[in-house]
């Protein structure tokens, strides 16, 4: 691993933080600087590493690093532009369609092509279908486990859940 990371998230000392004072993060050695590394970040497509710097119980800096590189841009270089969408679709197997359509549009822009109305409508339908499936996948397979404690779900009270649901929606 390289030992330097591009700081994507950093506190600017000149800018006051407008949010309310957060609760300090408990630190085994109060006052001392501490680094927290989470790698792998799971339930995402690809590979991600997060490093967090903690001082006096507060996050003072953070770095994220994608730890996978394939070089799809380099691989696309010099190929038949009609093939590009098949390659770019593989950027992500979870949200394939948007990468394919973005690539098709890029090629069409370069060639000055205007697609017929039927093609536009079909693409919108395909993107709509992808939008729905991606949200379902993202919530139930990927994100939900951040919010749901599966073990305690076993002792959940369905009636209380239902009552809560009814109290906040029609």
């Amino acid at each position: 691993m390289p030992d330097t990371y591009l700081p994507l998230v950093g506190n600017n000392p000149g800018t006051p933080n407008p949010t309310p004072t957060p609760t300090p993060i408990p630190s085994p050695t109060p006052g001392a600087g501490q680094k927290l590394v989470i790698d792998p970040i799971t339930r995402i497509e690809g590979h991600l590493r997060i490093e967090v710097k903690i001082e006096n119980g507060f996050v003072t800096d953070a770095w994220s690093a994608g730890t996978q590189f394939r070089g799809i841009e380099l691989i696309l270089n010099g190929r038949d532009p009609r093939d590009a969408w098949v390659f770019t679709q593989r950027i992500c197997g979870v949200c394939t369609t948007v990468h394919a359509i973005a690539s098709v549009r890029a090629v069409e822009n370069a060639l000055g092509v205007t697609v017929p109305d039927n093609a536009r409508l079909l693409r919108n339908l395909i993107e709509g279908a992808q939008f729905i499936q991606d949200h379902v996948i993202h919530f139930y397979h990927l994100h939900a486990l951040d919010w749901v404690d599966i073990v305690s779900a076993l002792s959940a009270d369905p009636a209380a859940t239902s009552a809560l649901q009814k109290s906040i929606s029609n």
Partner: protein
Amino acid sequence: MENKTGEISEQITQKGMSRREFIKLCGIVAAVLGLPASAVNTISNALAAATRLPAIWLEFQDCTGDSESFLRAYQRSDPLQPSKTDPGITSLILDVLSVDYHETLMAPAGFMAEKSRQDTIQSYAGKYVCVVEGSIPAGNNGVYCTIGGRTALSILQDVTSHAMATIALGSCATDGGLAGANPNPTGAVGVKDAIPGIQNLINLPGCPANVVNLVATIVYFLTYNQWPSTDNLGRLAFAYGEVVHDQCPREDFYEEGNYVLEWGDERHRQGWCLFKMGCRGPRTGSNCPTVKWNEGTCWPVAAGHGCIGCTEPHFWDTMTPFYIPLPGGD
């Protein structure tokens, strides 16, 4: 963490599947495997007594497409007559495979994720299956894919060395796939080249691989305690042994010389042969035309696009440009 005997039949019973439906499913698995009807009883008896296979699912230079295929493990045996208790062959996947480590699906992250992988290796040493998705970058000492500060190759060596078998799932894990396409900037290779001489390696190429074939492979192993036979490219013969073109429902159009000549033309609308639009079916071994996708309802040619040959070695280089017809098609 010990899995117990009879666990699979217990799981299936819990789903409310009747004995008859279970036998029907076993019949479908047998058909996919190309086994005679007499194998159905053997399969059902074996499954009823078997325990789930523990699996460590590794992802390296991947797009998660094979995992997505895995998550689509829901196929009715008869799409036209759905019933609540007939969830189809791929519903068996979680009954036959216990996926104990999978970065995209598991709850823990960071140190705890790493720990669960090591725990599985220790608890099931020599008894688990290693599923690999994505290629392994050999260039620059492996910096192009690291997990928990370790290179893909180091993790792969660790996990496969204690596995009873390794399944390279998808084209990237088989031969380097997309990342391995020319000029292969990261030196990406498949499992067979990352660990030369690796024992008990099963290649299930495809972009993505079809989960039906994964189910059939696991069921075959649970039934016969050995892996299905492979073709000359090291792929499973039952899934890749037949040429797409020979099984294609549009093959008659080919024989009659009735080709689509332009996207959206009348011939395209009539479902004629896509050979002249660049279809790679004649050069590709796969059971896509019979097993299909999307709950067994469709596959690329049925949707009106040619086969891109994704189960063949290095298809990103050998099958492209995709829209230039094979020799004889121009």
